[in-house]
């Protein structure tokens, strides 16, 4: 395993996962000198009354819980200000977040506001979150359907993007009682996103074995869940795997800048033809192949996480990269089949036109020449699904 000359990684998240994990939260908060948590939940969590499990877990403790439930999916500075006033007026000393995506973004900004004393949520900066120990304790109770960015050091609100290790939650709890009961599509979107983000962490260069610990786990858990796709909405284990995969992917990202595939998928999703997770699913098999040839990626490093030790070890080294791309293609094709075509395999399935793809390729703002419009156009060609990739001819 060749190592780069310099590696850096920081993930301050403590993960507690499994049976009666919620009951450990009061203990963890107490070790951080907190006993008056404020629970924030989104509409899904409120509808399913998930907060009841957390209240139950706090029984027999000296904690006092404040609750603000059914917060809207769209984060706003006004709500952050309102929550900050509650946090301060009611003397809360920790945040507990029960929800996904935008709610966690809002909670990260809120934590920055209440920890730094900065009143205007629009004025907080990444630098303010630079020192993790200055922020108040924050706990994420992870759901099965998530954006996979919840545990990361990234937050965005009203177009402003923040990136700092200090934004990551101190504690992430995964407990079957609070996974939620979302539909199959939301769960599959979580699995695909976590798989793709974890896979990009593991394959991309420079190599970072520290981030890979989380990246490999994101991939293993996502694959385990996606293989159980028929049972996804009902069975506990696949949903535990999905919650875990999303958390692992977020931890692997930490405060890292978005990767190449991630940036391109964002632009694809911005066209409205496909969702972000679908765009990642379309790009991933093609990027594994393309990345090996043009981005110095190492798809072979991903094979074990995808297919297990026995199958990976029995694959000759020269075939491992190809087997990775092939395993990814099979997985995405299977999802297409299981969802009767609702999850696209290739760009063609999603209904993109050539013109749209050219304009997407040109719209990725970056100084990275490896994803200049010409390079992206070649990647799109590989992900197109109809015309063979000329580089392979």
């Amino acid at each position, binding site marked *: 395993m060749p190592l780069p000359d310099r590696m850096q990684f920081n993930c301050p998240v403590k993960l507690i996962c*499994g049976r*009666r994990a919620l009951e*450990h939260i009061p203990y963890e908060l107490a070790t951080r000198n907190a006993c008056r948590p404020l629970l924030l939940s989104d509409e899904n969590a409120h509808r399913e009354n998930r907060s009841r499990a957390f209240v139950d*877990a706090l029984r*027999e403790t000296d904690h006092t819980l404040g609750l603000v439930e059914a917060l809207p999916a769209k984060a706003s500075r006004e709500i952050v200000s309102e929550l900050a006033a*509650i946090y301060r007026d*009611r003397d809360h000393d920790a945040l507990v977040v029960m929800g996904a995506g935008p709610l966690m973004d809002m909670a990260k900004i809120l934590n920055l506001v209440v920890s730094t004393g900065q009143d205007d949520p629009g004025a907080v900066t990444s630098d303010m979150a630079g020192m993790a120990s200055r922020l108040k304790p924050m706990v994420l109770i992870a759901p099965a359907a998530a954006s996979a960015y919840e545990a990361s050091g990234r937050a965005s609100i009203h177009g402003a993007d923040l990136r700092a290790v200090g934004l990551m939650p101190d504690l992430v709890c995964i407990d079957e009682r609070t996974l939620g009961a979302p539909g199959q599509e939301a769960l599959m979107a979580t699995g695909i996103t976590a798989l793709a983000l974890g896979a990009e962490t593991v394959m991309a260069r420079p190599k970072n074995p520290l981030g890979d610990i989380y990246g490999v786990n994101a991939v293993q858990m996502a694959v385990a869940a996606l293989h159980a796709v028929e049972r996804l909405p009902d069975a506990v284990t696949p949903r535990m795997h999905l919650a875990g995969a999303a958390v692992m992917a977020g931890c692997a990202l930490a405060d890292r800048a978005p990767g190449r595939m991630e940036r391109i998928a964002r632009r694809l999703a911005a066209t409205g033809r496909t969702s972000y997770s679908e765009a990642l699913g379309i790009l991933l098999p093609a990027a594994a192949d393309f990345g090996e040839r043009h981005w110095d990626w190492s798809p072979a490093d991903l094979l074990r996480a995808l297919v297990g030790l026995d199958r990976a070890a029995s694959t000759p080294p020269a075939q491992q990269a190809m087997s990775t791309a092939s395993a990814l293609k099979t997985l995405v094709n299977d999802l297409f089949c299981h969802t009767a075509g609702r999850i696209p395999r290739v760009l063609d399935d999603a209904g993109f036109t050539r013109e749209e793809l050219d304009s997407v390729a040109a719209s990725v703002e970056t100084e990275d020449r490896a994803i200049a419009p010409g390079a992206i156009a070649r990647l799109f060609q590989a992900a197109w699904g109809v015309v063979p990739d000329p580089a392979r001819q």
Partner: protein
Amino acid sequence: MNVTYREIKPGKKPVKRAYLAVMLWFMGRAVQAASRVDRAIMDEVADLPDDFVFALGVAERGPWMVVGRRSDGALSYRGRAIGDDPVDLKLAFKHLEAGFLTFTFRENTPVATARDRLNVDGEVAHACAVVRIIDRVQVYLLPKPLARLAVKRYPRWPLLRKCVHRTRIYWRALLGY
């Protein structure tokens, strides 16, 4: 937008608390009894310091089982509350549910420790001795299928010895001597 805020003080779990209290009470008395019956436990106790006191229970609010070493080398059950007297070793479940898992035989002591549910506060050597004593007592108290869940290795003891000791320990634990 005006958000809706409410504040609650979570309540108690009286049934589980009562169950644990009874189990710890009986376990405490059984430990006391076993220290007068079983040779291996007597040897373990002999290595503990004079006036050594240990407590097993749930962190913060209890219930506890407090047991002390007497000057004659036996253990004595001292009740279910940690008073002002110093406790040399505390084995504390982080929360009531963790204790409940153990005392309903779904997680044994090593597993509870491995799962970070049990905090040890005191000398590790003493904690090891206490865990060995408790394991042995559980083998006496529980029917084999349950005891096999509670200990890592169910011992090969002569049947007669196990039956006689089990009867004596039960009898003494119930009568409290």
